[in-house]
């Protein structure tokens, strides 16, 4: 029993020592390396104003009240009932993608952008006009290396330069 315990100690130490000489690091060196996300990643939303039919399903389904229907800033002359268009509030958005899934005209789509920072809360509210311009680009100090994350039998995850 006691001898067995000594071996257990030695085995634990040997296993730890083994890792001193292996190179299986899992760290992704963000922001020097940035994951090249596949299509289908649920990032920030892009909005196509041209195809939007103003059905407001996106606002109705939004679980966080992030999407709301906005009146245009300037109502066109002679329009009795101006159409409302969606705008998004990224302080609330939870990236569930229900709006994208329910949009019948594919006007809302996911981008793969997810790491954007803002200075104020107001900046994160995108009215339809700004929403149509697309999500802001993330700012990096220097251009990051794009890597693809690949499951690997030896290392768990492997990062391959694109």
């Amino acid at each position, binding site marked *: 029993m006691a001898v067995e315990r000594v071996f257990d100690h030695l*085995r634990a130490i040997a296993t730890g020592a083994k890792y001193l000489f292996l190179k299986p690091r899992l760290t992704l060196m963000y922001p020097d390396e940035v994951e090249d996300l596949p299509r289908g990643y649920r990032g920030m939303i892009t909005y196509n104003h041209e195809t939007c039919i103003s059905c407001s399903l996106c606002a109705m389904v939004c679980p966080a009240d992030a999407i709301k229907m906005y009146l245009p800033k300037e109502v066109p002359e002679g329009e009795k009932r101006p159409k409302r268009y969606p705008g998004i509030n990224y302080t609330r958005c939870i*990236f569930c*993608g*229900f709006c994208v899934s329910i949009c019948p005209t594919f006007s809302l789509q996911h981008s793969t952008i997810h790491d954007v920072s803002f200075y104020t809360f107001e900046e994160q509210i995108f009215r339809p006009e700004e929403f149509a311009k697309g999500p802001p680009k993330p700012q990096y100090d220097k251009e990051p290396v794009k890597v693809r994350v690949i499951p690997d039998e030896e290392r768990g995850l492997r990062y391959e330069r694109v």
Partner: protein
Amino acid sequence: MSEFVETISRSEDGRFLELLIGPQHPASGHMRLVAEVDGDVVVSLRPNLGYVHRSVEKIAEVKKFLQIIPLVERPSLADTTANNLAYVLALERLLGVEPPPRAQYLRTLLAEINRIHSHFYGIGIHGVMIGSSTAFMWAFGDREPLIHLAQELTGARITYSYIIPGGVRRDMPPDFPDKVEKVLRYIERRLEDYDKLYVRNPVVRARLEGVGVLKKEDAIRLGITGPNLRASGVPYDVRKADPYCAYPDIDFNVITREEGDAMARFLVRVGEIRESMKIIRQVLKKMPDGPIFAEKYYKMLPPNLKKYYEETKEVKFPGIFANLRAPAGESVARVEGGRGEVVIYIVSKGGMNPYRFRIVTPSFRNAVLFEHLVRNVRVADIPAIYGSLDYFPPEADR
């Protein structure tokens, strides 16, 4: 039940020290534990819940049925699929919708991937609570490949919102089984190293064996759930007792242990990781072809969305989903999540919102174990027992 009437036994002469562990404490989580210590011995301990209470049940009453899916995921972030699935099962019973077989298998697949990474989360936290930073880093690192798989499947790392009434939101990518197999082989190999460095480490065993013993009859009496119940020798698992999704077709074992101590609870989790890998392999092998969205809702899609769904196997919601109405009635569903059984009970009066929404999470049912197990143990055993319960305060507080 006199044993719970007065668990705090304030001494007259001020001999006992009242120790407030948390909420600002390295190992308390989002809760406070009120411990009374006599020297190094804990006389009694009461958890003080509610620090992160958000009243999910009340919010659900003003949310529409589909909007509740992300809401129920929020309380237990490490184990979102269980809550998502339990809610959708209850909702489907209310709506009378049956998802197609392939969707059932995809649900099972995600649930098991989630179970593995939820268990790694629990193992990691348990490790750092008894002082092994390596167990923590390893477990959290090895969680990453699984989260990556889930991300490929659903598009999100943690909050999947993948399971919707009538099916799932998208099919798996074509090369997915290959990637899963690679990750599973990696985890298998790594579990051997865990075994050598952590599980059989004499210090770990000294800290966990015989600590916080939960007897079988106490576990049943107190309604404990999940791996904590099975570690006390009760072979109850919802996947076997009341099978849902693809589990009736899958061959797997319910891991139980008789000891009921912290080590047993830890080992049940390790055993369940191995069983989950077995289940995932079977699911991928037996995965039937066919639709992933119920016929009832598919018919409601306009032609261009139908075409999109056929081409990309990505479900577009029919417009009715924005204002889904459930018939009056009530339904209850339970699901075996990583931490235990999630029970969801919906009372509907036929509107767009549930009339009463009830979610009982495993952590809330296990919270009683703090005062039951942490008595006449040493101060150092508080984190050892806490960690072994895989208790997650936001999940208990909801």
